[in-house]
């Protein structure tokens, strides 16, 4: 009995840490897809470059971890504004297929550039001393870094939700997701809103990529290999929703960990089958309008 309990605690723990990373990376994608109606398959690129910035700064220049994370958010956020202004903007309201193809093009370019600059191998990621090792909680030992991930994720999620609920910016985003034309009609600068929320989403992805480098290793195949996971979180969670993807990330993170632990042979197969079933049941996601 205690073995089952212990196993489920560790599944929950690791699943939760994975879910936090997934959520941080994917929440921006949900906003892009819900707000701009843009099918952005290149979102993982921002997370990957965030991870590269963090690992390079830490490994090659000895920059402290928090500073490296901040740099990743700023650099990737700024780069995403350039992308949005130059490329994404042209395809707003355009055909889905064009969006899909353009972003696949961006993924190819990013993968090739990552291979060129950083080589094909995964980046070494060593958390700072204070966050490595084990920490005792209750009567058990937990990896410190993953505990930190859960804590960090919870704080960010709370901040994000409060921000969306309580600030003017959040209200504008909610308005534009609900009814874009009406939002424009009442004088909301939706063009600026798009750019800002795109940058915010990409910055969060970079943060997630950097924080999660221990769980999702940073290597050139990152944007394609994890794309399915990000898309699952967003489409199951509900487009344009901030809360939905959180529950979807919890579901995916915990069930993925559980399946890998209990049924390593067919684990991912069940995840995809579950996603398909969920999407058939609620095509607009768990939180979106049915």
């Amino acid at each position, binding site marked *: 009995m205690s073995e089952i309990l212990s196993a489920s605690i560790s599944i929950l723990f690791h699943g939760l840490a994975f879910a936090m990373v997934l959520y941080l990376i994917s929440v921006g994608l949900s906003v892009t897809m819900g707000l701009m109606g843009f099918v952005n398959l290149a979102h993982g690129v921002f997370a990957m470059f965030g991870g590269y910035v963090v690992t390079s700064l830490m490994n090659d220049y000895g920059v402290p971890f928090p500073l490296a994370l901040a740099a990743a958010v700023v650099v990737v956020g700024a780069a995403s504004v350039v992308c949005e202004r130059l490329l994404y903007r042209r395809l707003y309201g355009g055909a889905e297929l064009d969006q899909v193809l353009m972003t696949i093009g961006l993924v*190819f370019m990013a993968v090739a550039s990552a291979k060129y600059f950083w080589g094909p191998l995964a980046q070494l990621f060593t958390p700072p001393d204070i966050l490595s090792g084990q920490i005792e909680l209750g009567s058990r030992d937990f990896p410190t870094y993953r505990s930190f991930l859960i804590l960090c994720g919870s704080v960010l999620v709370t901040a994000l939700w409060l921000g969306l609920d309580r600030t003017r910016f959040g209200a504008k985003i909610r308005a534009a997701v609900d009814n874009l034309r009406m939002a424009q009609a009442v004088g909301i600068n939706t063009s600026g809103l798009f750019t800002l929320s795109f940058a915010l989403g990409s910055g969060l992805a970079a943060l997630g990529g950097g924080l999660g480098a221990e769980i999702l290793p940073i290597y050139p195949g990152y944007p394609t290999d994890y794309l*399915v996971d990000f898309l699952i979180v967003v489409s199951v969670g509900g487009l344009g929703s901030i809360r939905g993807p959180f529950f979807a990330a919890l579901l995916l993170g915990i069930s993925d960990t559980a399946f890998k632990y209990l049924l390593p042979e067919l684990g991912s197969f069940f995840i995809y089958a579950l996603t398909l079933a969920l*999407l058939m049941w609620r095509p607009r996601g768990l939180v979106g309008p049915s």
Partner: protein
Amino acid sequence: MSKNGMTEKETAAASTIGEAAKEAASRRMALFAQRHRFRPVEALPWIAAVAAFFVFPAYLALGAQILATILYALSLDLVLGYAGIVTLGHAAFFGTGAYAAGLMAAHGMGEPFAGLAVAALAAAVVGLISGSVILRANGLPLLMQTLMVATMLYELANKANSVTGGADGLQGMVVKPVFGHFRFDLYGRVAYLYCLGVLFVGWFIVRRIVHSPFGRSLTGIRENEARMHAIGTPVFRRRLIAYGISAALAGVAGALVAQTTQFVAVDALGFERSGNILIMLLLGGIGRLYGGFIGVPLYMIAQDQFAEIDPVYWYFWIGLLLVLVVIFARGGALGVAARLLQRRGGRP
């Protein structure tokens, strides 16, 4: 006075209107017939394909792959370009066909045409079953579900190592001679002609479909689904049938590749297989029937030439090209050509 209370004059006028309407209808029919009459320019790809057989004897193995991939692109064009179903999982059908033909050949049933038939059937079954589940959706949910179906099949094939050989590939395929006579040779001569023949049949079928009333209704659904619903088109059933036919053709394409290379690995079901064909079709032009005939050879020949030197750069340039085509050259090569012709007053 006639019985409807119309004067003679009015009746005459009405009948003239009726005549005019009839005439307009027959003109439309003539235009419709004209639109799908064979134009000389449509013989070009076939002349080029036959000429290539004699001009590039050293590249026939690659040529056979190109021809099979054109059939794959053609099957994608049917659902994507005509029925407007955006899919990221077409490799599900390509891979199913490849494995069906591969498994048959590996178990002593290597007759090539039987392999094609079973591959078409297997892929059509997968297409119809998955389609009946997912085709009610549209947009991103549909995109996701096509991706999920392909990823599930990929995982299955990957895990069923004892049957499929997983990433190492299926071992021991023996494909029998075509018509019991023409053995697949080292230079790919038989493979090339075999693929060419099958592609021709596939092209003929797709061409008939897209110019038929059924095909026109697919285009109608693509353009305005709600309106097609309103005029009584069984939208879901039409989309499902198109999806099934396309799946069968993709399966045949997969079987061709499996038979001519005598090899199937799990990447036949992979995301790259779904993505690359989209790119090739985009480069040629989507929804124009001949997009694949231009995009596939361009892509595969360039890949053959450049990717050997450096596959990393190759993907960078393909990505850049993709972004540029989407933003500046809508409609791919054929779209640009059509616009140029139109500007010069020619027929598109």
